[in-house]
């Protein structure tokens, strides 16, 4: 039997944007087992819910993640609105959907860049991030923040987007689409990139389902789950096709995310076309008394916020289950049997967001 050795991977590693530690059990160059450990950046957000008023906690919930911050804030607000039975105006629902989809564009473009970096294609990384800058500009023009938008509040949204600005955004999407097409062509059709990604980190449909994969990781293996199909926000009134692929390797996950970019721009176009006029928020009085589970689709997968209130201004419990946490068991499955040199690409292929995971 070959001698087994343990190689530590992370928490400090050039390919990792955030700290996660993996103990790789190797037999020669082959990974036979992986022992993950998290807990390097725990910030205690869930405990903070007892110390901040439920209205102010929106800002805290939003800061759970630096990439999909808007969706965190929105999911928390939806939970409170459901407990307090608040009817959010239609226009606010559409605006939330538009910002959510821009978040997805932002996150996927960021991920494509990091992924290119993980397989050593620095030039592609810079191109992806240059395109992402357009999305961040839209965020800054409409919400005032590039990364932390802070535009969602309980009962609606904090600021409206004028119809002229919406039309301008729709025009900007055409430019974005053209640039993204050029970018994704490299990811999906270039010989070297394809050679690097095909048949690396394979996870079967059954394994992905049984280990609880969510988001593009699950859809890349053919598990068709997407929380947007629940119809929260304005998704119920918009038409979109879920993107899935059946191979379950790194290329499939890249393909799913690349195609989702165009699904997102299409959703934004539809929302801009259908958005009704009207108020963007309602006045909130009282305090939440009850509990609720909210599910929403983040760029990385299904996000769950559990909120429990007791009728006072301070909530009793908040629990956030982020997609990366549930994507770690599938990651272990993918890594078993792979080559050591493929580990960085496979780890990046699930789009790990460790700050989210540890809250």
């Amino acid at each position, binding site marked *: 039997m070959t001698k087994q050795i343990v190689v530590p991977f992370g928490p400090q590693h050039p390919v990792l944007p955030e700290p996660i530690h993996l103990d790789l059990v190797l037999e020669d160059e082959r990974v036979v087992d992986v022992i993950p450990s998290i807990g390097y950046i725990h910030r205690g957000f869930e405990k903070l819910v007892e110390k*901040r*008023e439920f*209205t*102010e*906690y929106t*800002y*805290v919930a939003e*800061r759970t993640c630096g990439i999909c911050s808007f969706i965190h804030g929105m999911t928390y607000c939806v939970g409170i609105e459901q407990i307090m039975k608040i009817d959010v105006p239609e226009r606010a629902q559409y605006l939330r959907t538009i910002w959510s989809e821009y978040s997805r564009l932002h996150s996927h473009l960021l991920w494509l860049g990091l992924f290119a970096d993980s397989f050593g294609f620095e*030039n*592609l990384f810079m*191109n992806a991030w*240059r395109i992402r*800058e357009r999305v961040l*500009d839209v965020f*800054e*023009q*409409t*919400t*005032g*923040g590039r990364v*932390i938008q*802070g535009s969602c509040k309980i009962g609606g949204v*904090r*600021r409206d987007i004028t119809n002229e600005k919406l039309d301008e955004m729709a025009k900007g999407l055409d430019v974005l689409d053209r640039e993204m097409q*050029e*970018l994704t*062509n*490299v990811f999906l*059709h*270039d*010989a070297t990139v*394809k050679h690097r990604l095909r048949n690396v980190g394979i996870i079967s449909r059954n394994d992905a389902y049984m280990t609880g994969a969510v988001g593009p990781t699950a859809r890349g293996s053919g598990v068709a789950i997407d929380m947007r199909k629940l119809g929260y926000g304005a998704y119920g009134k918009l038409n979109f096709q879920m993107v899935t692929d059946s191979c379950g390797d790194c290329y499939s996950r890249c393909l799913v995310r690349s195609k989702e970019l165009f699904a997102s721009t299409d959703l934004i176009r539809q929302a801009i076309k259908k958005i009704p006029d009207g108020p963007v928020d309602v006045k909130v009085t009282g305090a939440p008394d009850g509990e609720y589970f909210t599910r929403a689709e983040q760029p990385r997968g299904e996000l769950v916020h559990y909120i429990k209130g007791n009728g006072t201004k301070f909530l009793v419990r908040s629990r956030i289950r982020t997609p990366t946490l549930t994507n770690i068991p599938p990651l272990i499955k993918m890594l078993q049997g792979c080559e050591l040199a493929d580990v960085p690409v496979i780890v990046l292929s699930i789009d790990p967001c460790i700050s989210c995971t540890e809250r």
Partner: protein
Amino acid sequence: MTFFEMTKTALRTILSRPATILYPAQAAKKTGLSRGHVTIDPARCISCGTCQRKCPAQAILISKEAKTWQIDRFRCVVCNSCVDTCPVKCLFMDTQYSAPATAKGVEVVAITYVKPVKPPAGKTESTG
């Protein structure tokens, strides 16, 4: 499967201007809504303490005795909550980020608001 997929992009990048700007020689992009840092008009602040209560980062401290409004720029998360909730609208959001500092500390502003004295009811009658 194609080769030289990036040639077009690479050529365009060579021939176009850089995507980055020469900050700080050239000013950073800012929009009217950009959240930079919170400023106060001390002549209008009534020391009600709403901003202090509504601050999720507990960065603001108001002292009614000393008549001061202080903010810890290192704690402030620039969420705009205080600006939105201020009843007399004396807080503003500046679009520029607060300047870098070499030491941690708080910024103290003396409140100069003076409560207007109501003219006595009897006096107005006699003048009128």
